[in-house]
C-alpha cells in the first residue's frame, strides 16, 4: 500500500506548485503588458483611417479596428485599466468590508444584526444590476462604475470576514488584550485585523476576477468606460459591429485577454485557499 500511495502524493504536491507558478507567471505577464500599455496610450487612440480593418499581421498582432487603431495596443491599455480598476475595487471594498466585519464581531449584538440584515438586502440584487443602477445614479463612466462595483462587493467581504471576527472574540489573545485593558479600537487594529488578514487576502483574490467581469459587463452595456477608452468590455461592443462582416479579431482579442486574466487570478485564488486551508464558500 505505502509504495502505491507515496508517489501519488508527491505528484499531487508538485502539480499544486505548478499551478501556482503558472498563475503567477500569467499575472506577471499581464502586469508587464499593462505597463507597456501605460506608455502607449496616445498611440492606442490615434485614428488612422487608411489602416482600418487590417487582419492580424506581423505589424499589427491582433489587426486594426474600424478607425485603424491597433487592437493589440488597445488590449494592452485595456489590461492596465482592468488591473488598476479591479485592484482599487478589491482594496477599497475589502477595507470597508473589514471595518463592517470588525464592527459586527466586536460591537454590540444589535449592531451585528442590523449590519448583516443590510448586507443581505444588498446581496439580494444581482451584482451586475445593482452596480449598474448605482453607476447610472452617479453618471456613467469608469470611476462611477468602479464605485458601483465597490458598493456590491462590500457586503461580500463583510459576510465572510464577520464569521471570522465573531470567532476571534473568544480567542485567548483577544480576551487577554481585553483583560489588560486595551481599548476596543486598539484591539481591532492590532489584534483582530492581523487575525483576519489571511481570509481578507483570499477574499480579495476571489473577488478580483468577478470584479473584472462586472466592469467589462457594465462597459459592454454602455454605462462603464465610454468609447474611445480602450476598455475590454467597450472594445467587445465595438467588435460586435464588425463581427458579422468577418472582422473577428476586434472583439475576440480583448475577450481572450479578459478570460486569461480571470483564469490566472482564479487559479491563484484556488492555490491561496489550498495553502491557507481556508474552506470558504464560492462567491
Amino acid at each position, binding site marked *: 500500500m505505502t509504495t502505491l500511495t507515496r508517489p501519488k502524493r508527491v505528484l499531487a504536491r508538485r502539480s499544486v506548485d505548478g499551478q501556482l507558478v503558472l498563475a503567477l507567471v500569467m499575472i506577471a505577464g499581464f502586469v508587464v503588458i499593462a505597463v507597456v500599455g501605460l506608455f502607449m496610450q496616445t498611440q492606442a487612440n490615434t485614428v488612422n483611417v487608411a489602416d482600418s480593418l487590417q487582419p492580424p499581421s506581423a505589424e499589427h498582432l491582433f489587426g486594426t479596428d474600424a478607425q485603424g487603431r491597433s487592437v493589440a495596443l488597445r488590449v494592452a491599455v485595456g489590461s492596465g485599466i482592468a488591473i488598476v480598476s479591479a485592484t482599487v475595487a478589491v482594496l477599497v471594498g475589502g477595507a470597508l468590508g473589514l471595518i463592517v466585519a470588525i464592527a459586527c464581531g466586536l460591537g454590540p449584538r444589535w449592531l451585528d444584526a442590523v449590519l448583516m440584515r443590510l448586507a443581505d*438586502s444588498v446581496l439580494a440584487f444581482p451584482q451586475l444590476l445593482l452596480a*449598474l443602477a448605482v453607476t447610472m445614479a452617479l453618471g456613467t463612466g469608469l470611476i462611477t462604475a468602479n464605485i458601483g462595483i465597490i458598493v456590491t462587493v462590500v457586503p461580500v467581504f463583510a459576510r465572510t470576514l464577520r464569521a471570522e471576527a465573531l470567532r476571534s472574540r473568544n480567542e485567548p489573545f483577544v480576551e487577554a488584550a481585553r483583560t489588560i485593558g486595551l481599548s476596543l479600537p486598539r484591539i481591532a487594529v492590532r489584534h483582530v485585523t492581523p487575525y483576519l488578514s489571511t481570509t481578507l487576502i483570499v477574499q480579495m483574490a476571489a473577488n478580483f476576477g468577478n470584479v473584472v467581469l462586472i466592469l467589462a459587463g457594465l462597459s459592454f452595456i454602455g454605462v462603464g468606460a465610454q468609447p474611445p477608452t480602450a476598455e475590454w468590455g467597450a472594445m467587445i461592443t465595438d467588435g460586435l459591429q464588425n463581427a458579422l462582416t468577418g472582422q473577428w479579431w476586434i472583439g475576440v482579442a480583448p475577450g481572450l485577454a479578459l478570460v486569461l486574466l480571470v483564469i490566472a487570478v482564479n487559479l491563484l485564488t484556488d492555490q491561496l485557499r489550498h495553502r491557507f486551508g481556508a474552506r470558504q464558500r464560492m462567491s
Partner: protein
Amino acid sequence: MPTYILRQVLGVLQTLLLSSIISFAVLRLLPGDPARLIVGPLAGQAALDAVREQLGLNDPVIVQYFDYVGGFLTGNWGYSYSNGADVTAVLAARLPATIELALYAFLFALVVAIVVATIASYRRGIVGALAKFFSLIGLGTPPFWLALVLLLVFSVNLKVLPGPSGRLTSFLQPPPTITGLYTVDALLSGNVVAFSDALAHLVLPAIALAVIPCAFLTRLLTANLEDAARGAFVTVVRSKGVSRWSTHTRHVLHNALLPTVSSSGVVLAALITGSVLVEEIFDWPGVGQVLVQGIQRQDFAVVQTFILLSAVIYVLVNLLVDVVVGFVDPRLRLQRAGS
C-alpha cells in the same frame, strides 16, 4: 417546522423592506427629471408641472416611498416612455421569450453539470483535472463575449445556425400562443417547421447564457459528490455487493444533489444577469433586451422595476428553496438555522 418557516419568512420580509429602500434611494439619486423625459424637450412648463404632479414628484420623500412600494406591490410599475406603454405590459409581453431562453440554458447547464461532475468525481486524475479546467474557464468567460465567438464560428463561418435574428426567421409566423414558449407551442400545434426554426434560434443564446451557471454547478456538484462519497453509507452499500459505479450514481449522487439545490438562487441570479448581457446581441425580444434599451434611452421606469423585481424574485426563490430543502432533509434545516 412551522417556527422554522415563520422565522425564514420574517427574515425575508426584513430583507425585502431594506431592498426596496435601497432601490428607492438609488432611483431618487438618478440624474435628470423623469417628468421632462416623458413630456419631451419641447413641452412647456405647464405640461411639465402637470406630469410632475401626476407622478407625485412634488410630494414629500416619505409619501413618494410609500407610493413607490404600494405601486410595486399592486403591479403598477410606472410608464415606460420609450416603449409607449406601461412597464407591466412591456415586461409581461417579453417575459415568455426570456423564460424560454433561460429554461433551455438551465436545462443544458444542469445536464452537462450532472454528467461532468459525476464522471469527474468517479474517476479523478486526468478526467477530474479536465473537468476542473473547464469549469475554471467557464467561470471566467463573459457571456457576451462567448456569444460573439459562437456567432462568429457557427453563424458567420460555418453558416449552420442562424445569426442574430430573434426567436424565429422573419418570414415564419409565430405559433399560436398557448404557453408563450415558441418551441412548446409549435409542438402542441404540430408545426414542425416552426419548431425546428425556433430551436435553431435558441441554441447559441442558450449556450452563451448557460456557460457560467454550468461551470458553477459543475464545481459545486463535484465538491458535494466528493463529500458525499466519504459518507458511511457508501461502505454499507458497497459491502452489500453493489458495484462502485451504481453506488456512485444511485446513492452518492442523490445525496449530493440536495445540498446543490440550496444554491439555486445563485444560478437564478446568473441567468437574470446573463439574459441582460446576451439578449441584445441575438436581438432576442426578452426582458433583458428591454433593460439594455431602457438604459440607452434613459428610460428609468424600466430599469428601476427590473432591478427591484430581480431582487424580489431572488429572495423569494431562496426562501422557497430553503423551506423545501429543509422539509426534505431536516439536517440542512438545522444547519441553516444555526448559521
